[in-house]
């Protein structure tokens, strides 16, 4: 048996899904899109029930990919039962989606969620009357406390067993609209589509609402012009757009239903929320409060995360040492090198991020579940919109200053695909923490003391400026047109439940480990192989530089030299950049090796001296520029691949950023050379 959960965002739908399926669910992507797909299973009376948590939507009007997916699932996959989750404290608005689903002809069970809040606020709902008026079973649930779950399963079972496809709900849309509907129904029937998934009445209504998919269907059936005529006539008669008139009638119908079912009023939830909002969303105070909170989140994630990160790092190191001991001392086994330098450090480099990610998602879950996230987007959108971004992009981008990987994962909070992709693509331009060692190496090497702070600041600012430029560019070229509306509901503040927050964090951290880890493992091995092999013939002086030059990476570096020269790089930088693909910090280590200094950690000053000797300040600056903009690390690539469920986007991201890096560095280097800046 198959059950789908539908409902508004903020209706507590996902909590109910978690209650129904327990831990037995799986989060993936709908094929080819960035929309999350959650499915799971539960057992009831020996029957195995597959459950799908559809994306949260306000209506089935298909303006966004979420709505299209929800609608297509209900009609295409024909689940045995659709559970419509509504917020009992906000019944009128939430029932809008329910009514649309009922008009589709699905078998529905209504889950009256948050019913405890409703009662506490003085609202009494006559669920029997409601059940009778809508023709569906109604179950009171309190998702946060897991109440009503068993009753829900029972109601679902009962509804499914009833078997008969129910008569779709008929809302009276008034004489004019109903006349147009009849005409369109007749037209629809002439199309005679054997694959007719929707009822003709529903098709007629959607055509009047100018739904894109349905309009195309009418056109495809050869009755496009007639349908257009009917719609235009209706609009002329009404004086209003048909979709407004239809929505109005639906709301009136719901209103009448609610009038007979609700008793008392529900001010309780809003008033404390309103009081909080008066301060938090205050026109002047809102921004400072938000920035302070963000600072707090940052501190939490990257400072608090230091401790467990340190444990993991030393744990990985110890593991390496322990494994190393398995071979006789001094042995130069390739396997040992593979295991320790390749696998352990590669995978270790991934695992070390886990505390960061867990803490970040803890913060995001708290902000989101409490309802604050919506206010943050509200406050920031004015600024972000002028920059070509969306209010909700702010937090992911801010996170990118710490690490790009969680930043990309955080774009999930952006409902709209276009904004999400743009944010993901420009996120690497927010100079991440891993690049700091590079700047820390180069800046003191080339710049006098009073210039160092400003130089670092300059690099960051360039990153931000480029991010803004790129998002504007992407917005007008690749992602033109469907500028995402900001329209957003501001739910009342709620206290997040420990359970849902913990589950959320567990899910995200687990996903990161699983997917990013597998790709990174593979890539680590590859990079290790390229930088270690082939080794120079035995007997040659163990000269680091020569060995590096001999390896694949070294040879590639040499081969790239003609391309690198125009931007001021030589083969050494090229080799190090290749190594940096694994993780940005590797750049410094590789430079050390290439300049025959072995492990660069204790030899920073010596390395700087060599750099000063070989390169000019201009070249140093260009190296930093290139590292800032180009070649995002492997982990970034893997995460983008996971979040977009395709290879095209991460490849595009890498390619475009690298090309941009080359271009910018080229311009800066050549200009610098021509103007004689920084070459002394």
């Amino acid at each position, binding site marked *: 048996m198959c059950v789908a959960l539908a409902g508004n965002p903020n209706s507590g739908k996902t909590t109910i899904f978690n209650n129904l399926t327990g831990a037995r669910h799986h989060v993936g992507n709908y094929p080819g899109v960035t929309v999350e797909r959650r499915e799971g299973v539960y057992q009831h009376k020996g029957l195995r029930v597959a459950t799908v948590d559809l994306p949260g939507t*306000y*209506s089935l*009007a298909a*303006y966004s990919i979420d709505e299209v997916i929800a609608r297509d699932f209900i009609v295409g996959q024909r689940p045995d039962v659709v559970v419509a989750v509504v917020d009992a404290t*906000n019944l*009128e*608005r939430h029932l*809008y989606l329910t009514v649309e689903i009922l008009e589709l002809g699905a078998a529905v069970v209504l889950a009256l969620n948050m019913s405890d809040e409703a009662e506490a606020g*003085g609202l009494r709902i006559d669920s029997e009357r409601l059940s009778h008026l809508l023709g569906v079973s109604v179950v009171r649930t309190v998702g946060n406390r897991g109440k009503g779950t068993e009753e829900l399963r029972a109601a679902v079972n009962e509804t499914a067993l009833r078997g008969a496809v129910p008569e779709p709900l008929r809302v009276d849309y008034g004489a004019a609209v109903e006349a147009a509907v009849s005409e369109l129904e007749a037209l629809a029937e002439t199309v005679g589509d054997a694959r007719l998934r929707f009822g003709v009445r529903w098709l007629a209504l959607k055509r009047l*609402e*100018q739904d894109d998919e349905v309009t195309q269907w009418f056109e495809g059936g050869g009755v496009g012009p007639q349908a257009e005529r009917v719609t235009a006539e209706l609009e002329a008669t009404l*004086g*209003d*757009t048909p*979709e*407004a*008139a239809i*929505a*109005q009638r639906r*709301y009136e119908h719901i*209103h*009448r239903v*609610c*009038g*007979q079912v*609700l008793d*008392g*009023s*529900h*001010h309780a939830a*809003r*008033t404390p929320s*309103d009081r909080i*909002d*008066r301060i938090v*969303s*205050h*026109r*002047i105070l*809102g*921004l400072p409060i938000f920035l302070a909170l963000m600072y707090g989140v940052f501190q939490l994630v990257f400072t608090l995360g230091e401790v467990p990160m340190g444990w993991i790092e030393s744990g990985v190191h110890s593991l390496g040492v322990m494994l190393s001991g398995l071979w006789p001392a001094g042995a130069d086994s390739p396997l040992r090198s593979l295991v320790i330098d390749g696998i352990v450090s590669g995978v270790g480099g991934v695992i070390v991020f886990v505390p960061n990610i867990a803490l970040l998602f803890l913060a995001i879950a708290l902000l989101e579940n409490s309802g604050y996230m*919506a206010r943050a987007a*509200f*406050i920031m*959108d*004015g*600024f972000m*919109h002028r920059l070509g971004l969306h*209010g909700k992009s702010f937090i992911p981008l801010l996170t990118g200053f710490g690490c790009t990987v969680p930043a990309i994962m955080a774009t999930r909070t952006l409902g709209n695909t276009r904004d999400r992709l743009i944010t993901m693509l420009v996120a690497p331009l927010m100079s991440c923490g891993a690049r700091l060692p590079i700047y820390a190496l180069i800046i003191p090497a080339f710049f006098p003391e009073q210039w160092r702070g400003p130089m670092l600041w300059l690099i960051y600012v360039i990153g931000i400026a480029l991010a803004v430029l790129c998002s504007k560019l992407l917005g007008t070229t690749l992602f033109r047109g469907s500028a995402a*509306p*900001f*329209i*957003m*509901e*501001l*739910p009342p503040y709620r206290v997040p439940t420990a359970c849902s927050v913990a589950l959320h964090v567990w899910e995200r951290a687990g996903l990161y480990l699983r997917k990013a880890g597998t790709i990174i493992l593979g890539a680590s091995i590859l990079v290790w192989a390229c930088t270690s092999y082939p080794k120079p013939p035995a007997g040659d002086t163990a000269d680091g530089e020569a060995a590096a030059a001999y390896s694949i990476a070294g040879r590639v570096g040499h081969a790239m030299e003609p391309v690198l020269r125009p931007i001021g790089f030589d083969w050494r930088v090229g080799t190090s950049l290749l190594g940096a693909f694994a993780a940005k910090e590797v750049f410094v280590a590789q430079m050390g090796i290439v300049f025959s200094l072995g492990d660069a950690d204790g030899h920073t000053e010596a390395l700087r001296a060599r750099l000063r000797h070989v390169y000019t300040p201009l070249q140093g600056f260009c190296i930093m520029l290139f590292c800032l903009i180009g070649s995002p690390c492997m982990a970034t690539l893997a995460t983008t691949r996971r979040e977009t469920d395709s290879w095209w986007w991460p490849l595009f991201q890498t390619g475009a950023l690298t090309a941009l890096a080359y271009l910018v560095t080229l311009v800066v280097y050549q200009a610098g050379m021509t103007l004689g800046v920084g070459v002394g």
Partner: protein
Amino acid sequence: MTAQDALSPSQEDYLEAILLVQRDQTVARARDLVERLGVSSSSVTGALQALAAKDLINYAPYSFVTLTPEGERAAEYIAVRHETLKRFLAHVLGVGAEEADESACRLEHAIPADILDRLTRFVEFIESRPKGGPDWLAEFRHYCDGFGAPEEREPVDDATAGQPACLRDLSPGDQARVVRVTGRRSSTKRLVGMGLVPGAELRVERVAPLGDPIEISVRGNHLSFRREEAEEIAVELVARGQRRRWRGSRR
């Protein structure tokens, strides 16, 4: 009803209480009244003596209390009055049952007979109209719900009421009603789907730091959107927002 006209509020309460106790258990004792009215026995004794003097009850110390025929008429009238007021508060105004009861207790003594008569008819009228009736009441209650506690609502300003405007141009505190939807951009359709249908009443709650986006409340929900997304929604003003001191509403 001259005897009744001369009754004090507390004496009316006593009569009502005696009637109710009688309904429960046929005869009333002094101590039942002590319990029901929460007063001391000496107060009860004094009141009962006064009522007996008016020939409304039969009473002898330490014995049962019963109503005389005239007393019964008076008590019934008082009970009906209480019930009517309670019905008005609970069924018409939609106040909670307990609150209605308590308020009715206080209000009933202040209402002259002819006004009560009117009120009774009003309640009956409302409850029985086929076109009004429960639906009309529900609508009224929803109207009350839409804007929160009465003291928060600004008075309707005759100068501005009915003025046409566009949703995108409103300011915090403005109240308006959607009149027409003039276009079919997807953002407009989405707003309509979320409740901004013709006839819907809304209030602008606040604006973001740069004046855009804005937050409104409609049907008890709070929605936010950019001003440009509201271009195609034509409204008429119901009231303009007053300048508020930042501490909160006028008190």
